[in-house]
């Protein structure tokens, strides 16, 4: 906790820097030199059409892709939330959240993390007994319990129904306000990006095609006229007709 607060105050060092990241699958070049910097406590959304390489970039940043070239440095710790919850079916909730966790008072930390996502009383449940939204909340708790400086979110709410997705977005906003973590949010949902991010990156043809700050109030809603204007602009850049 203390280290993150300190890091938050000294906003000069970025939490993530990536330079000239390239990745090709056979002859297909997916990432053709991506440069990316995320400041401490900053939430950046990475938007792009399907197949634009968003998830590939996130996997590289998470250290899950050994065949990419370029340089990526995470100053601090990172945790990942995937599109699927990826909980181990043979571990109860508390054990899933505490997977690989070390240090003092792990039980208390696990309990607090589950409480933060509103599932403290389900700590003995098996993953198969939870709904999709609940399981994804546990996956968020599993990432949060590590008190990461950077949260890598790979379409974390993409597999959820529309109502659950809205609730999860509110939850993420609240957690971010409390913990002040930086995040890279990969999504194809323009509204989600606008609701959650401080800055939006557009990935196109393997490069960052646009870098747009989101100058909206922290309690933004889609009803905001500025929100609508940005939304139209982004959809336009993504090649989606809005009229």
């Amino acid at each position, binding site marked *: 906790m203390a280290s993150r607060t300190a890091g938050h105050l000294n906003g000069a060092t970025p939490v993530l820097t990536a330079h000239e990241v390239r990745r090709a699958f056979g002859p297909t070049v997916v990432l053709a030199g991506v440069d990316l910097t995320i400041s401490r406590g900053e939430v950046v959304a990475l938007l792009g059409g399907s197949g634009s390489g968003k998830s590939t970039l996130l996997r590289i940043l998470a*250290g*899950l892709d050994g065949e990419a070239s370029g340089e990526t440095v995470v100053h601090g710790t990172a*945790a990942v939330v995937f599109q699927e919850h990826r909980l181990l079916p*043979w571990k109860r909730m508390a054990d899933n959240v505490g997977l690989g966790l070390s240090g003092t008072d792990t039980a208390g930390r696990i309990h607090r993390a589950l409480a933060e996502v509103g599932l403290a009383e389900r700590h003995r449940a098996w*993953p*198969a007994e939870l709904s999709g939204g609940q399981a994804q909340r546990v996956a968020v708790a599993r990432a949060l319990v590590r008190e990461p400086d950077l949260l890598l979110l790979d379409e974390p709410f993409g597999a959820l129904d529309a109502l659950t997705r809205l609730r999860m977005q509110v939850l993420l906003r609240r957690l971010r306000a409390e913990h002040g973590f930086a995040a890279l949010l990969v999504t194809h949902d323009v509204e989600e990006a606008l609701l959650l991010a401080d800055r939006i990156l557009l990935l196109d043809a393997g490069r960052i095609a646009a870098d747009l700050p989101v100058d909206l109030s922290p309690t933004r809603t889609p009803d905001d006229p500025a929100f609508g204007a940005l939304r139209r602009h982004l959809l336009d850049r993504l090649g989606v007709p809005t009229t």
Partner: protein
Amino acid sequence: MSRTTLAEPLTEVAAAAPVVPRRQRSARRWRRLVSPVVLVLGWELAARTGLLAPEKLPAPSDVLAAGWRLARDGTLAIHLLDSLTRAGAGLLIGGLLALVLGTAAGLLRLGDDLVDPPVQMARMLPHLGLVPLLIIWVGIGEPLKISLVALGAFFPIYFNTYAGIRDIDERLVEAARTCGLGQAARLRHVVLPGALPALFLGLRLAIGAAWLSLVVGEQVNAQTGIGFLMMEAREFSQTEVVVLGLLVYALLGLISDLALRVLERRMLTWRRGLRAT
């Protein structure tokens, strides 16, 4: 303590299953008992009335009486113990070897390339057909019986270990990596529990194969064991003892399967949730 651990799953099952289908299920279970009981009664009746010649097939009550007689004078226990020892030793040897090789082939590319091809080829050999060759190699004594059982147990455990490891969801391994788990911790928390259901399946098939191998092996020059008991009884035309031997083999299979199922249910509690959804 044992009472509380036993009571827990029971209440959970009761809570999960609605009442009416359960009553129907128990009624069905009773109905399924009808035809076996009728068959045994018919067999008894046919034997008693002389419809079945006693030297061809004695009455079930005579078989039970023979069992009681052999159990009381200790003969049955001696032969049973010898059969069980052979099965246990063979299972242990074949099973451990299969576990080691299956793990090597499942986890390591080198292991897969070196181990899997010969095992796949050897699988095509019916292992019971190896008896003549095995007699030449290890003689007709105990080693023959134990090697037969070990061979029978090897293949199901090898293939299920291999498949169990290969079928583990790569995405779970990845998630464990992002949680900071190293190689050894991933083996312990992801690979082993993930492969466990397949391992249990392999073990069940292996035990079935072990009993079958034992039946064949014990008919080759055995001095003890259930198979010997049957062969000896055949020479003295004690058909009831032959049938008794069959019954014992069947019971051994049944009991081992039940025990394994109980163990499986305890160790794979998490799958109950899967089945419910």
